[in-house]
């Protein structure tokens, strides 16, 4: 990370969630809006509306059965608060997807402009997908990448145009009955990204997807599938925001990734949902021989996040990394972490988690590190650091480790710290205000993660941390 970003964070303090604006969610503005509640009729309506093949229709109905049969998890955060009958499961905002921003309805384009997406596309992105409610309303990939055979589509289009590939992989990394929320997503999924990178193709600039919830009580269930072929590389970035409403919305995504031999995939999330969104996401990748999978996961928003990006190291010398930041402010619970399974010899992994809690927020690390029998020579390092900014806030660490192999090298470190009065005094004695000094200490704390981000995202992440810091001091 360049030294500019810390300069960024000590200036320009704002005192509220900056993305809380909304457009009218008057049903008349939408092309199609389902009723509230979840049942087989809704699932049928979605499949019908999308004119899906029969196998997908069955997949959805079966998934709903799994969802209904499974109890709510009793660990992690309080998901019992979710009123599943009050949620809209499918809203289609526009009739068809746009290839030019100008072709979008004015109010939707205005939202993207406010979020700065068209501007970012021009400056530093190789491709952009923009999902509004249930559907991807804008999608574009640079022409030279299209020519190289790269596919970057929304998932619905992929199902229509590359049905065989979708059918081959969907639900293979995360089975539809993996957990209650994966089952929910499998039943009502809509939108999300489909990426295929052909052998040897390295995409230099990131591909970005942006997810926006606009309607009150919206449920957004995007489904993403990424296949990185041999010797290929992609960096995929997702961002998400929503308006502030007094009642809850639900976001429950499923992301499946396959990294073939010597391929590399980096998946970066900057999650900034408003504080009325339940964010319950299942993300899992498999990495084959000499492949690398990296999750960079920033969780700053939402009411409750339960998310543990996972990597299965299936081929010899595969490498996995989970780098995460969780920031919990007032009324927020971030139950984040990561999972790595070493299923082949000489595989290596790093989990580095940084959590910050303030104003009564609760942030934690929940992780699983597993080494299967036969995965000799596996090496892993797990580091989780927590920074607690006041007495009311809380941090939890649940590091589970299961090892069935003797020849392994594992390291685990955990620290919990508070911002020291002496550190603050030292920085303030150089002219920084208390708020600036605290923000500097926090940005330093998360620096090992933010330095892994492209500059634009590092600046964005630090700016969001700055916004979160606002109001906590002085």
């Amino acid at each position, binding site marked *: 990370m360049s030294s500019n970003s810390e*300069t960024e964070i000590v200036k320009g303090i704002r005192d509220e969630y900056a993305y809380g604006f909304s457009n009218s969610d008057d049903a008349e503005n939408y092309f199609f809006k389902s009723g509230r509640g979840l049942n087989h009729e809704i699932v049928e309506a979605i499949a019908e509306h999308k004119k899906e093949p029969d196998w997908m229709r069955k997949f959805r109905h079966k998934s709903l059965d799994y969802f209904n049969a499974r109890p709510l998890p009793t660990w992690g955060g309080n998901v019992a608060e979710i009123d599943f009958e009050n949620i809209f499961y499918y809203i289609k905002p526009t009739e068809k997807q746009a290839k030019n921003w100008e072709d979008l309805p004015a109010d939707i384009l205005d939202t993207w402009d406010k979020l700065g997406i068209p501007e970012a596309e021009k400056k530093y992105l190789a491709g952009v997908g923009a999902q509004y409610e249930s559907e991807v309303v804008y999608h574009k990939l640079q022409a030279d990448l299209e020519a190289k055979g790269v596919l970057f589509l929304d998932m619905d289009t992929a199902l229509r145009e590359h049905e065989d590939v979708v059918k081959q992989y969907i639900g293979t990394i995360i089975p539809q009955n993996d957990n209650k929320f994966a089952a929910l997503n499998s039943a009502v999924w809509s939108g999300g990204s489909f990426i295929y990178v052909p052998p040897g193709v390295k995409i230099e600039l990131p591909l970005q997807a942006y997810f926006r919830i606009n309607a009150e009580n919206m449920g957004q269930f995007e489904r993403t599938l990424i296949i990185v072929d041999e010797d290929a590389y992609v960096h995929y970035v997702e961002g998400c925001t929503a308006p502030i409403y007094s009642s809850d919305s639900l976001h429950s995504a499923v992301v499946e990734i396959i990294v073939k031999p010597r391929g590399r995939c980096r998946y970066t999330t900057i999650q900034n949902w408003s504080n009325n969104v339940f964010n319950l996401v299942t993300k899992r990748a498999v990495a084959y021989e000499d492949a690398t999978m990296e999750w960079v996961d920033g969780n700053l928003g939402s009411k409750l996040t339960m998310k543990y990006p996972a990597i299965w190291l299936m081929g010899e010398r595969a490498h996995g990394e989970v780098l995460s930041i969780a920031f919990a402010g007032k009324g927020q619970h971030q139950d984040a972490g990561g999972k790595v399974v070493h299923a082949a010899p000489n595989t290596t992994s790093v989990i580095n988690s940084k959590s910050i809690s303030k104003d009564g927020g609760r942030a934690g690390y929940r992780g699983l590190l597993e080494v299967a029998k036969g995965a000799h020579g596996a090496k892993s390092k797990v580091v989780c650091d927590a920074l607690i900014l006041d007495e009311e806030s809380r941090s939890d660490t649940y590091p589970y480790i299961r090892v069935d192999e003797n020849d392994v090298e594992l390291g685990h470190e955990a620290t919990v710290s508070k911002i020291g009065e002496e550190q603050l005094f030292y920085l303030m004695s150089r002219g920084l205000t208390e708020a600036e000094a605290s923000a500097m200490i926090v940005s330093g704390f998360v620096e090992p993660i933010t330095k892994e981000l492209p500059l634009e995202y590092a600046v964005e992440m630090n700016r969001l941390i700055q916004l979160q810091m606002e109001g906590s001091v002085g």
Partner: protein
Amino acid sequence: MAFLELKNLHVALEDGTPIVKGVDLSVDLNEKHAIMGPNGSGKSTLAYALMGHPSYEITEGEILLDGENIVEMGADERAQKGLFLAFQYPHAIPGVTVTSFLRSAINAIRKAKNGGQDDPIPVKEFRTHILAAMERLKVPRELASRYLNDGFSGGEKKRVEILQMALLEPKIAILDETDSGLDIDALKIVANGVNDLVGPEMGALVITHYQRILNYITPDHVHVFVDGRIVASGGKELAERLEAEGYEAFIPAVEAVA
């Protein structure tokens, strides 16, 4: 009136224990003062209290900086008004590079000087400025991209303190035991830094236990500090007397005052 004036300054710990018991002192621009005292005399408390550490309470008296009483101000405001403290034990700020910290601190001071409006130092000017100062103070280049004081040796920390002093351009710099833990070469570099900066734009108050640093920073005024009070003041010959006779010679003076 001198730029910094202490008038009957009393400082106590949070539990009320008095540490500094009535200090009068004037330090002006272009002056070098030394406060010498034994361990536990309260001289570091005096330094912290001048800078506004929240653990120390000023129970009586005034601190005037450029004629303004700063007793109620936080450390940030005092710094913005031209006060600087070189710490005996500078704190580490992991994840924040020396360069980025310096830029933020310089910009905080510039903002204050610009009436609260941002006035960030141009990137090129900052670069030229910091490189020249590092060269002058023999701060290794690689230190600029390391995290502030994180894993620094004692000598590196002290040099970076002086580097900060040079770049923030305070009016009055207080150096708290800056000589402790320095070998002779490092001590010379630090002392030369102070000598270079003291002039029409800056005065310095050097707090020390030993006379050693005063061989390199020749003070205009020396004050002997025992049990929270200045018990004797004089020129640099006072430091030499102290070195020869020890602090014991001044203890009766305390009792005489008491």
